[in-house]
């Protein structure tokens, strides 16, 4: 890092609960922003020493490298069930799972639903970028109608592949969850909202308040074939029409 300027105070730096490792994500990918926001929440609540993170299968498979806390890398889709096991074994731990749209809403759909339904006192971060990044850009349950992916080369056809799943809305029907919200990162205001939401989701767990889910509309510039800035605009103008932003459940 270049030398700091004289006569000025540092007002923004890397969260202390993150390691120095360089992220393996593509340029402009929102995973990095979310990771920083989680680091900030852990710092703010002072919980790094009792936090355990759960990395899924997907682009964020290496998530265990980013945090200065204990972590697990687990089978595809199972993070919500693993989180259940960890938390039931040791309720003093702050357990968070970090899952993409395949992990959370496809192969892990049952585990996601039932951890929410049991009201497990965990924090779930669901990164929804409407595509499977790591495996080369295939359709996700959240892929938009007409969206071209490697397994929907002519665009998602609902007659063949159904419609994008609004999983948070489905979980909002359940009695147990304490906090379910959908956020985005396409401008500074949204980044601030997401920051508050993620902090709330961790604070809820620290206070024993129950199940918290933050769904974050993220970009995948590589598989959307867009520049990072265009990808942000795509979320703002197109994706939010299918996946509305805001709090779906807030019983905290």
């Amino acid at each position: 890092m270049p030398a700091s300027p004289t006569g000025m105070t540092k007002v923004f730096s890397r969260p202390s609960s993150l390691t120095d490792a360089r992220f393996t994500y593509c340029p402009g990918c929102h995973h990095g922003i979310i990771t920083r926001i989680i680091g900030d929440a852990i710092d703010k609540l002072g919980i790094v020493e009792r936090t355990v993170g759960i990395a899924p299968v997907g682009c964020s498979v290496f998530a265990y490298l980013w945090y200065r806390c204990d972590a697990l890398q687990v089978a595809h889709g199972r993070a919500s069930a693993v989180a259940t096991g960890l938390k039931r074994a040791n309720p003093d731990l702050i357990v968070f799972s970090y899952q993409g749209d395949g992990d959370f809403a496809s192969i892990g759909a049952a585990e996601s639903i039932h951890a929410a339904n049991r009201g497990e006192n965990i924090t779930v971060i669901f990164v929804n970028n409407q595509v499977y990044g790591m495996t080369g850009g295939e359709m996700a349950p959240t892929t938009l109608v007409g969206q071209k992916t490697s397994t929907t080369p002519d665009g998602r056809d609902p007659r063949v592949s159904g419609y994008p799943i609004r999983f948070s809305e489905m979980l909002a029907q359940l009695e147990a969850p304490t906090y379910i919200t959908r956020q985005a990162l396409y401008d500074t205001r949204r980044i601030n909202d997401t920051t508050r939401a993620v902090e709330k989701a961790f604070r809820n767990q620290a206070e024993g308040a129950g199940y918290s889910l933050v769904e974050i509309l993220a970009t995948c510039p590589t598989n959307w074939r867009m520049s990072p800035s265009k990808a942000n605009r795509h979320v703002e103008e197109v994706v939010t029409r299918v996946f509305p932003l805001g709090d779906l459940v807030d019983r905290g």
Partner: protein
Amino acid sequence: MPKGAVRIDVERCKGCGLCISACPHGVLAFSGTLNTSGYDVVRMERPEACVGCAFCAMTCPDIAVEVYREKSPAKEG
């Protein structure tokens, strides 16, 4: 407005340009210089316009930006 400045970690920057779009004062631009990963690194092209709002740092997906701000004399004491 207080004066601000940013410092960009050249080897972390992936030249994604989100910071350039996020900056409200047009401070940042691609430098045309590549880092060892081959990315065109961002630099402060108009440092005099920086107010230290940190919008760039907030959006940087690689936490490559540190932000500094002059303490505003009117707010102290």
